């Protein structure tokens, strides 16, 4: 189990760094909700691409996995859009 976690830690760290950087940018852009939405779209796209790449490199990529990443990415976008769409 520990070996498996270590094998993936670089991917998790990379994802965390980019997403936290995006969160920081969103915090600085709260005066412009269009920009907040644009950054959220980018972060979701990054999560999907990063996840697929992660599986591809470890040779366990599958259509089912790709769809799951895409759906969770859309979930994130939907949640953020629903939170801000009436404030615009």
């Amino acid at each position, binding site marked *: *189990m520990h070996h498996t976690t270590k094998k*993936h830690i670089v*991917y*998790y760290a990379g*994802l*965390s760094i980019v*997403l*936290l950087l*995006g*969160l920081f940018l*969103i*915090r600085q852009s*709260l*005066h*412009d*909700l*269009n920009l*907040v939405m644009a950054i*959220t779209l980018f*972060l*979701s796209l990054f*999560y999907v691409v*990063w*996840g697929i790449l*992660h*599986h591809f490199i470890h040779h*366990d990529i*599958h259509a*089912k*996995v790709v*769809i*799951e*990443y895409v*759906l*969770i*990415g*859309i*979930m*994130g976008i*939907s*949640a*953020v*859009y*629903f*939170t*801000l*769409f*009436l*404030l*615009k």
Partner: protein
Amino acid sequence: MRDFLHHLFLPRESNNHRARILHHSGLLLLIAVFFVLEISFSFIHSQREDILGIRTEITAQELLTLTNKKRAENGLAPVQLNDTLSNAASQKASDMFSKNYWAHNSPEGTTPWVFIKSAGYDYLYAGENLARGFTTSSDVIDAWMDSPGHRENMLSPNYREIGFAVVPGSLTGDETVLVVEMFGQKREGAVEIAQAEQALPGDQTVVSEAFPDQQEIRNTESTVASFKTQPIIDVKQATKGISMTIILVLFSAIVLDLLIIKRKKIVRVVAHNIDSMIFLLVVILIILIIGNGVII
């Protein structure tokens, strides 16, 4: 019911060892829920803002009381509400909405001091704080007090008078309530002082040699100093609460899935749970900070 919830949220044989909510169909259903809610909220909001709207309770009187309370706590004399400064603040708010900018200086470079002078306030010292998107007066004051530059304006012994404008409108694409706070100390006629000091949050105090020509901006509108809306359901709280609940449910299902599957050592073809947990955690943080007021 208990069995159905287990089927929905816990990995077991009946759901092929993956919580039903994490199946493609479960995720699609949640996305559809957001879609339906967006249409419903949008319809209700457009028809009945008294039922579903943005709750705001900001008044000049509360802002003044809270400002003076903070000043008293720091051993400073209170500032008096001044109609001319409130008029200048109102002019500044109108200018920001009409030219669509969120800054102390307009895109043409018009400074806050132009509004103060054109309103007819001949100052020795002047300052400006701006806020937008807050719900209550105390939230505005707390945010200014937490920012060193704004706090400096709030607690400056140089200011004797204050003016406010609290104006709703559309700014840089967002529906918001703008709060303009202007501080000042009048130039005393008997005192000969050649310089006037002006302060913006975070900036060094600017010293100017002379005032530019007055009456650049006419005082055409009456002062707007308070804004209160009391819809039955507050849009900010409702949308945040719903988004947060759905994402937290999904996050919890993934955490449970990770723990149970690791314990049972079952091999499946699914996305990495930790990837999704990190992403959803960031989404939760984004939802938490959206709609919070901002100051400059």
